[in-house]
């Protein structure tokens, strides 16, 4: 794991990618920092960070796109997968490498509140919970990006897909407001979701009977539930969609709350996507 971590980190630092990533984040946060904190004298650094969350949509794909896609295209994954290391170690090594690159601007951000305190009183609590939240949010986005990079051989496709996935996650709360909150609408939403799950199941297993059976069983359960207790469904689909909204969990941190549920949520997202990445790499060996 350490060998892969070292190699990956070095490759980011000897090529442009790592620097572009860091420069872009620093540049964007720097602009907001200058505008809000320095020019208008607003003392809350967390506000600047929360405004620059959208930067992740652009910079995370830059960092993660080549992570596994390029290995596959150049066939360098052969040296990794035939070496006496576990796939989990390979993925962890890679993940910690991008996390380290991401940590560099975060460490620099930690000085910003100190800088601000020269000009007035600064709530360190609010500033540093914001930075911690920002770090976990970014780390979760990186895990998603890494997973998407493992799905394809092309860096460009990986970048576009990651951007799309992060964009959907970023906008989902806004979008879900347009969905009717009645129980029936949610029921329909779930039905569509079940069909999507069945299609995914079919594309993975190529087993018509299994995926059709799965769809039928799930559909029956939801129908029975709907007929039995329709109130359960009211606005549930938008609640479900909000689960994938990573950015909204960040708001508590900006308010100065060290939100443990938020941390647990982000760590869960990271673990799930690391697990999925391992599975995706393993799956390639079997197909």
């Amino acid at each position: 794991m350490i060998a892969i971590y070292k190699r990956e980190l070095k490759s980011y630092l000897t090529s442009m990618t790592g620097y572009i990533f860091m420069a872009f984040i620093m540049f964007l946060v720097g602009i907001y920092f200058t505008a809000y904190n320095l020019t208008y004298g607003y003392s809350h650094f967390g506000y600047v960070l929360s405004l620059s969350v959208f930067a992740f949509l652009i910079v995370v794909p830059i960092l993660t796109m080549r992570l596994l896609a390029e290995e596959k295209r150049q066939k360098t994954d052969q040296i990794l997968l035939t070496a006496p290391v576990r796939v989990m170690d390979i993925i962890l090594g890679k993940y910690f490498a991008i996390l380290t690159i991401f940590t560099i601007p975060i460490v620099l951000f930690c000085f910003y509140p100190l800088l601000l305190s020269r000009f007035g009183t600064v709530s360190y609590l609010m500033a540093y919970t914001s930075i911690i939240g920002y770090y976990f949010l970014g780390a979760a986005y990186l895990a998603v990006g890494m997973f998407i990079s493992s799905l394809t051989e092309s860096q460009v496709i990986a970048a576009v897909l990651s951007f799309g996935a992060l964009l959907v996650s970023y906008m989902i709360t806004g979008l879900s407001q347009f969905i009717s909150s009645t129980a029936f609408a949610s029921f329909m939403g779930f039905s569509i979701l079940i069909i999507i799950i069945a299609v995914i199941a079919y594309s993975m297993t190529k087993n018509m009977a299994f995926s059709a059976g799965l769809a039928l069983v799930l559909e029956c359960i939801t129908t029975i539930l709907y007929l039995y207790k329709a109130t359960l469904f009211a606005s549930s689909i938008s609640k479900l969609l909000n689960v994938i909204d990573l950015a909204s969990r960040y708001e508590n941190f900006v308010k100065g709350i060290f939100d443990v549920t938020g941390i647990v949520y982000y760590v869960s997202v990271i673990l799930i996507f690391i697990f999925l990445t391992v599975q995706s790499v393993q799956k390639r060996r079997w197909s």
Partner: protein
Amino acid sequence: MIEVKNLVKRYGDNIAVDHLNFTVEKGQIYGFLGPNGAGKSTTMNIITGYIAASDGEVIINGHNIFEEPELAKKSIGYLPEIPPLYVDMTPYEYLKFAAELKKIEKKERKQMIDEVMKLTKITDVSNRLIKNLSKGYKQRVGLAQAILGYPEVIILDEPTVGLDPKQIIEIRDLIKSLSKKHTVILSSHILSEVSAVCDHVMILSKGKLVASDKPEELSKLMVGSNTLELTIKEEEAKVREILNEMTEIIEFSIHSSVEEDAVDITLKTKQQIDIREKIFYEMAKEKCPILAMKVSNMSLEDVFLELTATDKEVRQSQLILENQSIESKQNEEEQEDDSNL
């Protein structure tokens, strides 16, 4: 050393490796031979744990590659078809990375890398970026990576592709010297390479093992004919006349030669018969100088073609052969008619 049992790899409906069984003994060089798409690379990828098998098992040094991959992979060094090189590293950095990956002790690393670089003759380029190296050097860096750590089994997928003739000989010598301490498995679709290097040849066709034996034994498999190539300084008609009288010859063909006033002859006899002396005396009697005579040993190639061809191809090639012999007989008859007139 390596046991492969009932190995199957399916890609959808396509069977790439079809119930393969073989064992590999210590300290020998094994050669996988087969046409493109015969399943050589797939088999190697499965043995090294890069891809999983649909069925069957591979046991390396008593460790099942699917159940104890880390232990099994420890005793394997692998050079895939395309060397897995990180092009933005120098060979030295790359080998250092490979050494760490293979969990070689820290104090041994540097010395081992130096040794391996010397063996594969890449010391001169060890500080240049891999992307600036020629194909031959890249191949050698890949080879160095496979040898690194001196694993018990070294698996090389087409190790001499892209090398110049001098390098090919060097790499072959290197592989031969490796076999003193290691077991080597290499794949190739070049016959001469396999017969030059390997102690044991396994011929694969469509994922099946069609033959597995020593190269000499494999040639013996081919019952049939001996082929002789001759260059004789004489007119074609005269030579034809002499050869027609020899009953031992199954068939022959005469072509024009690069030598002036001479003809090239390819003739086939039954396997047990050595016709060289007789030809010499016959030609001498007729005062036809023999400029060159050589036994052409094509039999391993024949074995290979025979074993790897599909039934259809075999029938076609047989048909072509028959047609040729019919034509040559017809030609002879016609010429005889001409001379009679």
